[in-house]
């Protein structure tokens, strides 16, 4: 047999469907998107006995075949379309032993589509604790299927699923509930009009709001010999169908499924009392939040510093080892720096998704949603928006990815659009250096002005997110009828394997998804910064060398050399090194320092006359009213790639060799504007901070928003709206303060 068996995993949310999928496929899985939409498509290969292979498709979780969301309609669409390449040879319905009754509802619907169906009853390890006993054989007979009793937690029963899949040809494909019983008269007529179609399929097509390709709904409605029913009548019939199905299920379970409530033990009730308590509930949530913040800001800084260093070293190594040339420069300054800019985010993303998946797997997340929903609603957000908004203080990229849990499209879109306002960690270096430059050191009520300013900036970011959500809620006209309903699953210990898979998968999808775009723009920025068309650029070395010969080094370079030498002398004297030795060292040091200073002056001159430098000059009239000169203009331009680039760019422009904050700060403080005042004064400093607070200066976020909304419309809207707003606020602030 050469053809793989097509298997579709179907089930209610929270039944451990993904665990079953992980155990069936192991690492032989891939996650992609369904064409045209952002619903994740998970598929994998599973080896069966006797050398047969199965292609396993993990379909989105759904409660029934009556769909209310995009994810769910996908399931129906596939099951109705026999021509789809993924159309299952066999459906595996995953259920959870505690909610079997409700899970069987979906099972009977799939069975009625006449697809060979296997029932997996998962979480069998909980049976005794919940006082549940079952007669599997009798149940198999009543449901006309084969059952696998599985515990993914203990890894039991997976082999049985594989055997049943391999043996799928012996499964019955007879329906459980005769569709005609819903309304004999109506279905009779339906059958007469479409003698070749399956009745239950027709019924599903008629009652769905989604239009399916294989059997066109319009085609049914247009059939002249057939009068369809009004929406209300159809709903009555659906109601009747639900009752019929539950009759069948109750009848089945009466004999085969027993719960001894006295034996049932559970800590859901007692845990819920604490975790959703009016006071303790919020307190506990707050503590968990603090822990997450701690991880993202503090713990992840170690791997991030390490990554930063390694990439700097790699770049240095390449420059020193490979023959100098355009290719080496591109590799060292463009590609390596670009990849570094992606990899640096991995620790934060991994930590964040580690926590989020722990909270989700344990069942706690539903409780947070329950606690927050009412508070978020006036702003057009849902209880489910809280997670992305909090994640945004680390980085907007994982935050935007975390919005996937919000089923309601409008609420999700608003969350995606406002999340970049929250103060992410990339804004921090910019804020810190500007605050140190322009905010006085004094204190008020024991709090330093500088700390207060930083806190205020965080509050402004969060306030702006909420405020713009409120406005978007008013102006966005999106019909989204998905109702708010959260299942509160039983608490369970997270499965390490599932958590690991989630973290791995999310990180991977960030690195390869957004990464490509970040890399491309980094290369473009590098090119624009290291190339120029003007004569000045081409002859930079000549010009700068001539200038140095005539006028000597710039005042700044002289100071730079002098400071370094002074520092060395002081140190050496303190250590008691002989004066002659010091004199010798200083001589060779001066030579080195001079060479470095010269190289930096050339680099600075080149940047000024490169494409991006020219752009900065052209850009100057636009930023002048905000109190910036062309150099800040360039920094603003290049930091479009990522906000933290601002500091690095200024360092290059001011030809400060090292990235040490102190040196850049001193240099920036010494910079004067045309009228002789410090360029970084209170007015321009605050104007800059406000600009960075509001502007969408992050192409990674744009890339991820594009991916998550699957269109350029929303990221461009975001870019336009945020940039214009940031510009106006910065302009007003500068003009008032100056």
């Amino acid at each position, binding site marked *: 047999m050469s053809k793989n068996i097509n298997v579709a995993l179907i089930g209610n949310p929270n039944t451990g469907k993904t665990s079953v999928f992980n155990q069936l496929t192991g690492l032989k899985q891939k996650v992609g998107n369904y064409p045209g939409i952002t619903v994740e498509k998970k598929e994998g290969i599973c080896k069966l006995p006797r050398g047969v292979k199965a292609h396993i498709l993990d379909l989105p979780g759904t409660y029934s075949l009556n769909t209310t969301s995009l994810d769910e309609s996908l399931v129906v669409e596939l099951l109705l379309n026999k021509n789809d390449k993924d159309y299952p040879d066999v459906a595996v319905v995953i259920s959870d032993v505690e909610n079997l009754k409700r899970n069987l509802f979906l099972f009977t619907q799939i069975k009625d589509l006449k697809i060979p169906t296997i029932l997996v009853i998962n979480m069998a390890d909980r049976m005794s604790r919940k006082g549940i006993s079952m007669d599997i054989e009798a149940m198999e007979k009543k449901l006309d299927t084969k059952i696998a009793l599985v515990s993914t937690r203990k890894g039991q029963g997976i082999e049985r699923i594989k055997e049943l899949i391999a043996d799928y040809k012996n499964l019955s494909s007879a329906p459980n509930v005769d569709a005609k019983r819903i309304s004999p008269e109506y279905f009779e007529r339906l059958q007469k009009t479409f003698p070749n179609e399956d009745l239950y399929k027709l019924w599903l097509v008629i009652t769905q709001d989604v239009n399916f390709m294989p059997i066109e709904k319009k085609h049914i409605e247009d059939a002249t010999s057939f009068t369809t029913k009004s929406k209300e009548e159809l709903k009555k019939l659906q*109601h009747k169908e639900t*009752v019929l199905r539950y009759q069948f299920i109750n009848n089945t379970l009466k004999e085969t499924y027993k719960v001894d409530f006295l034996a049932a033990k559970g800590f859901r009730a007692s845990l819920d009392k604490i975790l959703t308590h009016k006071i303790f509930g919020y307190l506990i949530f707050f503590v968990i939040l603090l822990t997450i913040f701690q991880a993202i800001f503090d713990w992840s800084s170690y791997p991030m510093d390490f990554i930063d260093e390694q990439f700097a070293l790699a770049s240095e190594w390449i420059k020193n080892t490979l023959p100098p040339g355009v290719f080496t420069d591109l590799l060292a300054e463009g590609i390596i720096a670009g990849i570094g800019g992606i990899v640096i985010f991995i620790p934060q993303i991994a930590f964040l998704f580690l926590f989020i998946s722990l909270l989700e797997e344990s069942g706690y997340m539903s409780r947070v949603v329950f606690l927050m929903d009412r508070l978020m609603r006036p702003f057009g957000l849902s209880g489910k928006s809280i997670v992305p908004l909090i994640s945004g203080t680390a980085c907007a990229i994982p935050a935007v990815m975390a919005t996937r849990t919000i089923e309601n499209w409008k609420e999700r879109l608003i969350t995606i659009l406002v999340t970049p306002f929250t103060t992410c960690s990339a804004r921090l270096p910019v804020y810190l250096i500007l605050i140190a430059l322009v905010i006085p050191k004094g204190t008020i009520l024991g709090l330093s002005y500088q700390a207060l300013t930083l806190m205020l900036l965080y509050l402004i970011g969060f306030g702006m997110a909420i405020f713009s959500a409120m406005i978007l809620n008013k102006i966005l006209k999106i019909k989204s009828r998905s109702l708010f309903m959260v299942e509160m699953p039983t608490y369970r210990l997270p499965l390490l394997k599932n958590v690991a898979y989630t973290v791995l998968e999310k990180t991977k999808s960030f690195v390869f998804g957004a990464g490509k775009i970040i890399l491309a723009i980094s290369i473009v920025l590098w090119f624009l910064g290291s190339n120029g068309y003007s004569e000045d650029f081409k002859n930079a070395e000549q010009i700068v060398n001539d200038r140095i010969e005539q006028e000597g080094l710039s005042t700044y370079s002289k100071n730079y050399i002098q400071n370094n030498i002074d520092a060395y002398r002081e140190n050496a004297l303190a250590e008691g090194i002989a004066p002659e030795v010091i004199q010798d060292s200083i001589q060779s040091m001066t030579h080195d320092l001079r060479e470095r200073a010269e190289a930096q002056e050339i680099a600075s001159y080149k940047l000024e006359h490169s494409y991006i430098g020219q752009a900065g000059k052209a850009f100057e009239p636009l930023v002048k009213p905000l109190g910036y000169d062309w150099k800040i203009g360039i920094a603003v331009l290049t930091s479009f790639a990522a906000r933290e680039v601002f500091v690095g760019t200024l360092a290059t422009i001011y030809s400060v060799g090292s990235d040490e904050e102190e040196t850049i700060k001193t240099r920036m403080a010494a910079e004067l504007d045309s009228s002789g005042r410090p360029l970084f004064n209170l007015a321009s400093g605050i104007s800059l901070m406000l600009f960075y607070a509001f502007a969408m200066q992050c192409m990674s976020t744009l890339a991820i928003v594009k991916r998550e909304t699957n269109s350029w419309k929303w990221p461009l809207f975001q870019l336009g709206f945020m940039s214009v707003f940031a510009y106006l606020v910065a302009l007003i602030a500068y003009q008032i303060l100056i």
Partner: protein
Amino acid sequence: MATVADLTQGQKGIIKDFAEHVLPIKLLELGCLPGNSIELIQVAPLNDPIYINLSGSHIAIRRSLAELIELDIIEETQAL
């Protein structure tokens, strides 16, 4: 007529009837059918949403939806 929104914490009720054309079919499928029981487990701060046990399914719904489900309240019997 009492609705699910009228339950107090820990109180149970038997679903009687509801405006079936406005109630989402999803809720029916979770077992929200006449004759089944609903227990109010917890009310969120600010009184909304509410957390119920709908014949075995533990879910949270908004109050506006709860008001559409009519039921007979069973006076709380003391637990053994």
